[in-house]
């Protein structure tokens, strides 16, 4: 646990942090060119951090001494966060228009935050992404807590800043208070965990818990309750039941690009945090985790936590689905669909590290891509200067903008798990992980839910392509900015093309969860393979 190695691994985060500062300052510049360059600078910093991540995480020494439960997880998560961040920057960026600024200054035009480049928006966006990245490097509870807060605090401000109406403020307030409650919950949980194990460090905590579970008394109830509370708090981030109630309201109030942000980034943050926290209970997937001196193999979560996650997964996907079935507003629909997807992803957590967490990381990428495609289209369109709110606004989109209508359909298809889109592969991996770990009932419930979800996704895909346009939807035109539509089309086509790269992507997720057995198992399997073939030939 050398400080230098810790710093090596967080250089991508540091770079992004510098980016946040630079962007905040440049955003205040008087020069029009400089201010116009803010999104570009943000993008460059993000690209730089993604590239840096690849280099940093290829360094075995840094990984060796990092003192992390999952040393390589950051390689995947930081790349994903950076790339998603690029899309989000393109969604939320504005243009520099002097005439408009003068009009606002003179009071003749109301201020529309989406139309202008705002340094602070980009700075907050980067800071929140830094928070997500730092979660991967959390070595102890304090770090995890700070990183989680860093990822979520800027978003409160971003929601409030995102558009100039009361709804945005209302949802920011709701989001803030409920977020504060969740913070209190997981902090309480952390305190109990500390009390039960006497340490803040995850590695030590894992050893203590492993030792405790080998004793007669088992893991202390304190630790289990603490973990339960901590998870409950983090469920807020992934909008899982029972902490999901805020999602539809907040999504509805925020502007479209901001909703896109909320539907992706906190989920990545939350799931990584859950993986790390659950890792302290010993499912880091490494052989040497076997409790020393005893024959008991430490694998899987303690029964109460596992049962809680199981139930939360079921409730989350079911309630999310039921909620989504009733929606007319497209953003509420996406909020509920996001809740449902959290439910599916929790299967990955329940299934554990054998395949579950790999599948979960893969699913996160698939889900993010689908959401980016959808929000690209939604943000790229405008109805009489307003955001697209209702699904009916999209009716007849095929006539005016066939490409965008197609992208909406692709995104919906990916969400429902229509092969060969990326969402199908994500769901398949999750189902496989679930079945392999023996949670067949859970997988069946997910399958039924995913069939139910086809109703509203079909609606989402069908309305733009099948319906005739209405007077209301005829007012829908291209928004002032090209970038979101480009994001929509690139990500939409990506939903179709990325499946070709399922193999490397899944491999990336796999290796990122398995640092310890990175080299040896591959040798092992190559030596095992002929033997198994032999035994088959005999059989």
């Amino acid at each position: 646990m050398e400080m230098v190695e810790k710093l090596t691994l967080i250089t991508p985060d540091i770079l992004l942090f510098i980016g946040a500062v630079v962007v905040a300052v440049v955003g205040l510049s008087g020069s029009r060119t400089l201010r116009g360059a803010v999104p570009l600078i943000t993008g460059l910093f993000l690209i730089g951090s993604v590239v840096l991540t690849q280099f940093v995480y290829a360094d075995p020494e840094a990984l060796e001494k990092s003192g992390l439960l999952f040393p390589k997880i950051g390689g995947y998560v930081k790349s994903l966060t950076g790339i998603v961040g690029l899309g989000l920057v393109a969604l939320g960026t504005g243009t520099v228009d002097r005439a408009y600024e003068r009009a606002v200054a003179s009071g003749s035009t109301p201020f529309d935050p989406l139309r202008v480049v705002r340094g602070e928006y980009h700075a907050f966006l980067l800071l929140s992404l830094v928070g997500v990245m730092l979660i991967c490097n959390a070595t102890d509870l304090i770090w995890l807590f700070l990183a989680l807060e860093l990822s979520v605090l800027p978003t409160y401000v971003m929601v409030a800043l995102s558009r100039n109406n009361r709804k945005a403020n209302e949802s920011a307030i709701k989001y803030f208070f409920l977020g504060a409650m969740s913070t209190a919950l997981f902090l309480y949980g952390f305190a109990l965990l500390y009390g039960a194990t006497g340490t803040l460090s995850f590695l030590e905590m894992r050893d203590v818990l492993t030792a405790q579970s080998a004793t007669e008394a088992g893991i202390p109830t304190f630790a289990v309750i603490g973990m339960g509370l901590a998870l409950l708090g983090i469920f807020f981030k992934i909008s899982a039941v029972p902490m999901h109630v805020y999602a539809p309201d907040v999504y509805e109030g925020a502007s479209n690009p901001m909703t896109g942000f909320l539907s992706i980034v906190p989920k990545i943050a939350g799931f990584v945090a859950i993986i790390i926290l659950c890792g302290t209970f010993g499912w880091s997937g490494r052989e040497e985790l076997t409790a020393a001196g005893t024959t008991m193999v430490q694998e899987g979560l303690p029964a109460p936590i596992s049962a809680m996650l199981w139930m939360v997964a079921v409730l989350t996907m079911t309630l999310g689905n039921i909620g989504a079935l009733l929606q007319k507003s497209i953003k509420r629909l996406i909020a509920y669909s996001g809740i449902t997807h959290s439910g599916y992803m929790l299967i990955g957590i329940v299934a554990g590290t054998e395949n579950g967490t790999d599948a979960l990381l893969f699913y996160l990428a698939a889900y993010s891509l689908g959401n980016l495609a959808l929000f690209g289209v939604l943000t790229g369109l405008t109805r009489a200067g307003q955001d697209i709110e209702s699904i009916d606004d999209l009716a007849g989109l095929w006539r005016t903008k066939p490409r965008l209508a197609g992208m909406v359909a692709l995104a919906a298809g990916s969400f429902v798990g229509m092969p060969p889109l990326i969402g199908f592969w994500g769901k398949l991996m999750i189902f496989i992980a679930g079945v392999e770990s023996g949670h067949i009932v859970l997988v069946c419930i997910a399958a039924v839910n995913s069939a139910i979800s086809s109703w509203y996704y079909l609606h989402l895909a069908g309305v733009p392509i099948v319906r005739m346009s209405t007077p209301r939807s005829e007012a829908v035109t291209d928004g002032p900015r090209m970038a979101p539509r480009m994001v929509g089309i690139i990500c939409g086509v990506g939903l179709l093309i990325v499946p070709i790269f399922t193999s490397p992507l899944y491999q990336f997720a796999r290796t990122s969860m398995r640092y310890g057995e990175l080299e040896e198992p591959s040798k092992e399997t190559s030596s095992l393979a002929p033997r198994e073939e032999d035994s088959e030939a005999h059989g």
Partner: protein
Amino acid sequence: MLAGFLIAIPILAAILIAIAPSRMARWLGLLGGLATLGWGIVFACMYPFWSEIPTEGANLAGYWPVEQGWAIIPLVGLELQLGVNSVSLLLVLLTCLFAPLVVLASFTAITERVKEFYIWLMIMNAAVIGVFIARDIITFYTAFEVSLIPAFFLVAIYGGPDRREASFKFFIYTLFGSIVMLAGFVYLVMSFADSVGGWLPSTNGGVNVWDIDALTTYAREFLSPTEQGWVLLALMLGFAVKVPLWPLHTWLPLAHNQAPTAGSVNFAAVILKLGAYGVFRFVIPMVPEAVVEFAPYIAGLAIIGIIYTSLVCWAQTDMKKLIAYSSIAHMGFCMIGLFALNPIGAQGGILYMITHGLSSGALFLCIGMMYERHHVKEIERIGGLMKSMPVWSFFVLLFTFVSVGLPGLAGFVSEFLCLLGTFVASSENNGGYPGVLGPWYGIVAGVGLILGSIYMLYLVGKVVFGEENIPEQDHGTAAHHLPTDLNLREIMTLAPIAVICFFIGLYPAPLLEAIEPAAEHMLTAYPETVAAANRADANTTPLLLDAPSTLMSSTQQD
């Protein structure tokens, strides 16, 4: 590669249509359909179809061409490998046959969003062919699901007044079934993977756990009866919706009725076959013990479906709905043929897929042509078309006879074989294939046959021969430029189907010979499994007596 072209050609045609201006769409669609059909025929000629089926070595199921798969997702061991055996080849040919015909049938019927229409038709062909030539679970499932999308849009955009409800109901029904089916597949694959050491090729030494034939061999030997039962239920749910079996059929009349002619034809001719093909390819060969257990129930549902829908047909006032309901009854015959579990019934069931595709597809085409002229589908509002549309009437009569199973036409052979297979299933004279169905199933289903001829002849009697009753021409519609009777294009659409129906009816031997090895392969495990089940059922004493003796022999060996 060779089989890949069957999918590539329609997709290429779809891309061409998308690029070209929309006035060329229908011609390009026709070209695409003809190209698909042409390649299908060439492909069929290359298949060692009439001479021998290559069933040696690893390729037990007789799939061809045998070639190296293309590793699409190497990490999970997924290889794209396409191929056909005699049954899937026949179904591919059926799909190819209808590819140009539905385009021809839509020439004047589709006036809006023309381009997309033909694109959807082409994608539909590609997807359905993909189902028939898939050799791994993922390709199969992908094609199975993708075929829903064009079907949904064909109904939702071009359908009748209730198109929205119809398309949603169809989509959700089938998607629900197929997602449960996916769960069943995942369970099968994982259980297979467990036995070989893992689902990733890096852990199991390069076994392709997705391969359908390998999976079949594994499943029928190593799955416990309970597991087999659950897998059967999961898979059957997916396929029964598509077939459709009785309580899950309610999407079908609505979708058929609301779809445009081309959509109805595609539904009847090929989409319903996906379910029956799934039963042939997965359910029966994979889980024999469960099939023996469940066959009476599934056959029971099929028979309830036959009787129930035949009665419903009798009371129908809408022609398209009548044909739609009759499809349910007909697919019921196909199901009891397959679940008779002997080669006779299986051949009948498989041939039934083809003949039902031909006859009901053709009937939908006929009704579509009449609808284009008179804009009426209600039986009450039209009659006596014999005078004004003699050519049309000839075709309707012909296909009705095919449909009710007049000897000498295609329908008879398959229907007869299905019932024969069911009859002999539990008799002494079973040719080495004891079955679990029996004469009673055949007798009750036979009643459906009679009901079938009643409602079909009632329809024909009213519409073709009845009192002349032609609705007022609705001027200002597209009916103008069509002649009173069929024009050359429409005759060209129906004539090939008619010729094939005669051919199969008069000389079915080559087809049945080709189907036989595939049917026998499907039933590999059955004589034994059924016999074992019968023994266990008939009297339990021998088993009890067996037990000590085997015990004794083993102790003696020790």
